[in-house]
C-alpha cells in the first residue's frame, strides 16, 4: 500500500502521510498513557485515580495538556539561553525517530530500515545529549546533578541492552525489524532467549527512567532532576518524550521478543488483526512496566551502577558467547532455550531474594523502636 506517486524515486506524499499518522497516534497514545498510568498505579495503591474529568476521568490527559499550553513558560536568569531552549528538541526528536522504523503491522511502519535495530540504538544515544543539555543549561544544582546521573545511568545500561538484543539478532541473522518479526511465526524469540528478555527489560526500565531506576528524576531527592527549571509546555515536551519512548520501546520489545504482528496468527490475517496483536503485546509490556513501578522501591545510585557493571554486563556477554557457540557448532536450539530458561530463572530468583533481604535501614528502625520517649 502506498499513497501518491514516486518523485525522483522518493514517494514524498507517502512518507508525509505515514509520518502524520504516527504523529497523531503518538499524541493520542501519550495522552491516554498518562491517564492509564495514573489509573493503574492508583489501583495498585487502593486508590481510584482520576475520576472527575469526563466519564471515569477519561478526559484527564486532555485537561492536563490544555492546562500546560496556557501556562507561563519561564526561563531562569542564569540559565545558558540557547542550551536551555534547545534541550527539549534534542530530547524529543531522537525518541520520535525511533517510532519511524517500527513495524506496527507487516511492512507497515513509516519506512522499514534494513539496519532498523542499529538505527534505534544510534538515535537512542542522541537522547542522552538532550538530557545533558537540560542538566547543564538550567544553571541549577539539582538539574546538573540529575543530568549527570541520568547520563551515567543511560550510557551504562545501554551496553547490556544492546548486547542482549544482539543475541536475538544472531539468532535471526538480521537487524531488519520487519524481518525479525516475520521469522517468529511458529515461536517468539522469548521462548528461545528468555534471559535476553529479562536483561532487555531491566535495562529498558533504566533507559526510560522508570522506577526502580528513577533516581535521576527522583522528586523526593533532587526535585525532578534535569527538568527542574522547565515549566509549562517545555516541561511537557520532556514528558511527551518519556511516554513516547515508553510506547515506542514496548512496541520494539514486542516485535523482537514477543513476535510482533506475526505470532501466533501469521501473515495471512489482515492488517487490522496484526495491528491489534501489536497493540495487545505492547500494552502487556507497558502494564508490566507499571506493575514493576508500583511494586519496587527506588535503587540507590551506587546500587544501580554496580548492578549494571557487576551483574548485567557480565551476564549479557556470557549469553552472547553461549549463543554464538550454539549457532557456530549447529547445536539444537532446544538446548540453548533450556540453558537460557535456567539462567533467567536463576537471575530472577537472585533478584527476588536480594530485594527480600532485611536491609540495614530496617535494623536502624529496630534500634529506634527501643528508644524510650520521655516527655
Amino acid at each position, binding site marked *: 500500500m502506498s499513497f501518491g506517486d514516486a518523485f525522483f524515486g522518493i514517494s514524498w506524499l507517502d512518507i508525509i502521510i505515514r509520518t502524520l499518522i504516527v504523529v497523531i497516534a503518538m499524541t493520542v497514545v501519550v495522552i491516554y498513557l498518562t491517564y492509564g498510568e495514573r489509573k493503574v498505579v492508583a489501583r495498585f495503591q487502593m486508590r481510584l485515580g482520576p475520576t472527575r474529568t469526563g466519564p471515569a476521568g477519561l478526559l484527564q490527559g486532555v485537561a492536563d495538556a490544555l492546562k500546560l*499550553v496556557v501556562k507561563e*513558560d519561564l526561563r531562569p536568569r*542564569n540559565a545558558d539561553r540557547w542550551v536551555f531552549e534547545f534541550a527539549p*528538541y534534542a530530547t524529543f526528536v531522537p525518541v520520535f*525517530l525511533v517510532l519511524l522504523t517500527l513495524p506496527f503491522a507487516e511492512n507497515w511502519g513509516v519506512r522499514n530500515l534494513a539496519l532498523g535495530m542499529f538505527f534505534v540504538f544510534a538515535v537512542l544515544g542522541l537522547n542522552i545529549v538532550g538530557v545533558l543539555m537540560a542538566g547543564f543549561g538550567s544553571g541549577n*544544582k539539582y538539574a546538573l546533578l540529575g543530568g549527570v546521573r541520568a547520563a551515567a545511568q543511560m550510557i551504562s545500561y545501554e551496553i547490556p541492552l544492546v548486547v542482549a538484543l544482539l543475541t536475538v539478532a544472531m539468532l535471526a541473522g538480521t537487524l531488519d525489524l520487519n524481518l525479525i518479526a516475520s521469522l517468529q511465526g511458529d515461536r517468539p524469540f522469548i521462548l528461545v532467549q528468555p534471559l535476553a528478555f529479562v536483561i532487555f527489560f531491566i535495562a529498558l526500565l533504566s533507559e526510560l527512567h522508570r522506577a526502580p531506576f528513577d533516581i535521576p528524576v527522583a522528586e523526593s531527592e533532587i526535585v525532578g532532576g534535569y527538568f527542574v527549571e522547565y515549566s509549562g509546555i517545555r516541561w511537557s515536551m520532556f514528558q511527551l518524550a518519556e511516554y513516547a519512548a515508553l510506547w515506542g520501546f514496548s512496541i520494539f520489545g514486542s516485535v523482537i521478543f514477543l513476535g510482533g504482528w506475526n505470532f501466533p496468527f501469521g501473515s495471512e490475517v489482515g492488517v487490522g488483526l496484526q495491528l491489534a496483536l501489536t497493540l495487545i503485546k505492547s500494552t502487556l509490556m507497558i502494564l508490566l512496566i507499571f506493575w514493576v513501578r508500583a511494586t519496587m522501591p527506588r535503587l540507590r545510585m*551506587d546500587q544501580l551502577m554496580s548492578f549494571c*557493571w557487576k551483574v548485567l554486563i*557480565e551476564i549479557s556477554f556470557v549469553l552472547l558467547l553461549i549463543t554464538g557457540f550454539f549457532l557456530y557448532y549447529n547445536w539444537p536450539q532446544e538446548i540453548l532455550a533450556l540453558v537460557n530458561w535456567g539462567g533467567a530463572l536463576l537471575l530472577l530468583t537472585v533478584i527476588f531474594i536480594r530485594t527480600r533481604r532485611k536491609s540495614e535501614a530496617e535494623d536502624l528502625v529496630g534500634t529506634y523502636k527501643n528508644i524510650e520517649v520521655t516527655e
Partner: protein
Amino acid sequence: MSFYDTWSAVFIALIAGVILVGTALIGARLLGPFAREQGKSISYECGMLPTGKNWTQVHVRYYLFAIMFLIFDVETIFIFPWAVRFLDLPSHAFWYMVFFVLILSGALFYAWRKKVLEWR
C-alpha cells in the same frame, strides 16, 4: 523501496519532530501569559535564595564511567556486523570474537580490581 526513499523518510521525520516541538512552544507563547519579573527568574533551590555558584563541580567518578562506557561501546560497534554475519564468515570467526571479548573483559576486571566500579 530504494535507499534514498528510506533515508529521506528519516530526514522528513527529523523535520516533523522539530516542527512538532516548535509549534507547541510557539503556541504556548501565544496562548500563555507572559509577564517578566525579577523574582520569577531566580533559579529554583527549594524556595530558598540560591547560594554559591550555579554550576557546581561534578564528581570525577562520572568521568571514569564515561571512559569505561567508551571501551564497551566501541566493542559493541564491532560486534554488530559480526553478530549478523558470523556464520557466513570464514572459519574461526566465532573464536576470534571470543578472544576479543576476553581481552576486553580483562579490562573490565582490571577496573573492578582498581575499585573504579565502587561508588566512593
